[in-house]
């Protein structure tokens, strides 16, 4: 077990470092005069030079990357003009645009993204696994076809269409819910949930189809297994067969897919966050990409990568619990 953990952690660190290198290189060659963007469109060449110097943009790529690693391990000092402040390790640097510490920025944004993704995950599991079970049970009948159609509509429609139409109808015309506006969970849990309901639903509708297909496929397989036939032969009720035995067999792949999707949704729910105005990681990241705010981009991508890696590790453990034949190696 210790060996497994150690290897996992080491693997995660290597993965994250590789990601940071890729991002550095990709954004190094991305067009866009960072100093001019930071300074403003009407800055003179001299001012732009001063800003470039200030942001150390003239250093070669490897020096800048080394500086980044240094900050991660040892923290870094920076000047506000009137005083010198310290950004303690692990310091991801300062935003070119806002001069905020990237670590602080992430801490501000992460709760929003996690709120969105956790809630949506509950919904997509309920919707996805639910329809999957139902359609395996009702295989080939009209109700299965309908369910398949509904979940596929989710895949087929981009979130900005589903979300906007939902908002116009539910919030604007029927006035059942307020227009979503993020409220901190710690401030008001009830409002937090009400405001996030539509974003959760929109994101869940998009993810649910894959779970429905997967659950259905796995269940059908398990249902065809010999031991299920045996249960049936012994007169175990259909509900019990479906609910207890077949579903259990379908759990493992669902867990794996869920880990995958959870991880990537932490930063990948860009469109959902943008549409609903949720100030999360994804929205911030797209903004940072547009203004070539490298420290923010690297920091955010690393956080997302961290969650993907973490989610996969959790999945492996859950996987082992769900399926005792698996040995953590």
């Amino acid at each position, binding site marked *: 077990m210790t060996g497994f953990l150690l290897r996992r952690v080491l693997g995660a660190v*290597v993965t994250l470092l590789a*990601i940071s290198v890729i991002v550095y290189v990709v954004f190094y060659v991305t067009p866009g005069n960072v100093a001019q963007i930071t300074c403003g469109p009407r800055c003179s060449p001299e001012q732009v030079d001063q800003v470039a110097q200030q942001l150390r943009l003239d250093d070669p790529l490897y020096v800048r990357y080394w500086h980044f690693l240094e900050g991660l391990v040892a923290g870094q000092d920076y000047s506000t003009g009137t005083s010198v402040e310290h950004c303690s390790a692990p310091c991801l640097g300062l935003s070119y645009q806002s001069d905020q510490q990237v670590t602080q920025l992430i801490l501000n944004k992460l709760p929003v993204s996690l709120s969105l993704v956790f809630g949506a995950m509950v919904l997509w599991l309920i919707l996805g696994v639910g329809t999957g079970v139902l359609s395996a049970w009702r295989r080939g009948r009209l109700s299965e076809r309908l369910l*398949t159609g509904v979940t596929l509509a989710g895949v*087929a*429609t981009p979130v900005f269409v589903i979300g906007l139409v939902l908002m116009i109808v539910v919030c604007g015309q029927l006035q059942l819910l307020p227009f979503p506006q993020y409220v901190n969970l710690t401030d008001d849990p009830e409002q937090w949930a009400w405001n996030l309901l539509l974003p959760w639903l929109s994101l869940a509708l998009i993810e649910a189809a894959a779970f429905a297909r997967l659950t259905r496929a796995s269940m059908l397989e398990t249902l065809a297994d010999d031991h299920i036939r045996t249960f049936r032969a012994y007169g175990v009720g259909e509900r019990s067969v479906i609910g207890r035995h077949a579903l259990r067999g379908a759990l493992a792949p669902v867990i794996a897919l869920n880990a995958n999707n959870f991880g990537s949704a932490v930063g990948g729910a860009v469109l959902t966050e943008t549409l609903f105005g949720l100030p999360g990681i994804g929205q911030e990241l797209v903004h940072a990409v547009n203004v070539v705010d490298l420290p923010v981009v690297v920091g955010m991508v690393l956080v*997302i*990568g961290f969650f993907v890696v973490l989610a996969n590790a959790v999945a492996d453990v859950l996987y082992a619990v769900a*399926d005792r034949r698996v040995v953590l190696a």
Partner: protein
Amino acid sequence: MSEALVAVETPGAAVPGVSGAGQFWRRLRAQRAAMVAAGVVALLVLVALAAPLLTALEGQDPNTYHSSLVDSARGGVPIGSLGGISGDHWLGVEPQTGRDLFARLVYGARVSLGVALAATIVQVLIGVVVGVSAALGSRWVDQLLSRFTDVIVALPLMIMSLALLAIVPSSFPRPVLVALVIGLIGWGTIAKIVRAQTLTLKQLDHVAAARLSGWGTWRIARRELLPGIAAPIITYAALLVPSNISAEAALSFLGVGVKPPTPSWGQMLTAADVWYQAAPQYLLLPAGALFLTVLALTVLGDGVRTALDPRAASRLRVGTGRKREAKA
């Protein structure tokens, strides 16, 4: 293809004496839904290919402006009922520009289907090569490739696309670029599936036998493994195509999709969502087309998989590469 299909039959499932391809077609034809879906897919492809012909028949083209058909003072909403549907404009016209919607829809099918299919092919190719190599290679090769796959999976697709699309010079043909970018970034999951499946198959008797009899790795991969991973790949690819169409739409939404005036369904959806109240058909047309495509592809994918291997078909799982006991 027929060779692959013969070999897909897992031990005990094959019916002796009947050719694999024949069996496959027989099983596929037996599924009415799959046949209908195949018809729809064929029709869509046909429409995309025949776009110039169809628009010539209508007497329109996708890029000509008709300022007189929209109400400029009201934001450019189409004049006339149902979004300006008429004998000249079968599905009405686009708000603001008055461009013909039928023409844009059928031309859009070319880009959307083309980009999605091309991206899917890229994803499947890379995914299969990486997945199979990881499963069959030495421990180091496996570690390296699996780590690499992890990195790709962990990089946010949208963000990397934004950056990559900005780097490449604008003279590069955009639809090809969009397909490549989606393909190059989105192969991680399929590589994981293939690796997991290959690991499972590796332990099966007939593969083990082949190994013992001294077949080369390449030959084993081609003759014994590829057929076994075909079913899950087809299933997953059927889901990849629609999600790639969505990815193209999302890139359009972020402003880095296919370039105007080239129409694509994604671009139409992006432009149309705000028109949902004022000109609903503008949104409903591309949305409907996309839905139909996704539905048809999924049903067809299911059908093909069932026909390939009715019993083992659903065994395949999206795994993380853990060794699982083969249940066959």
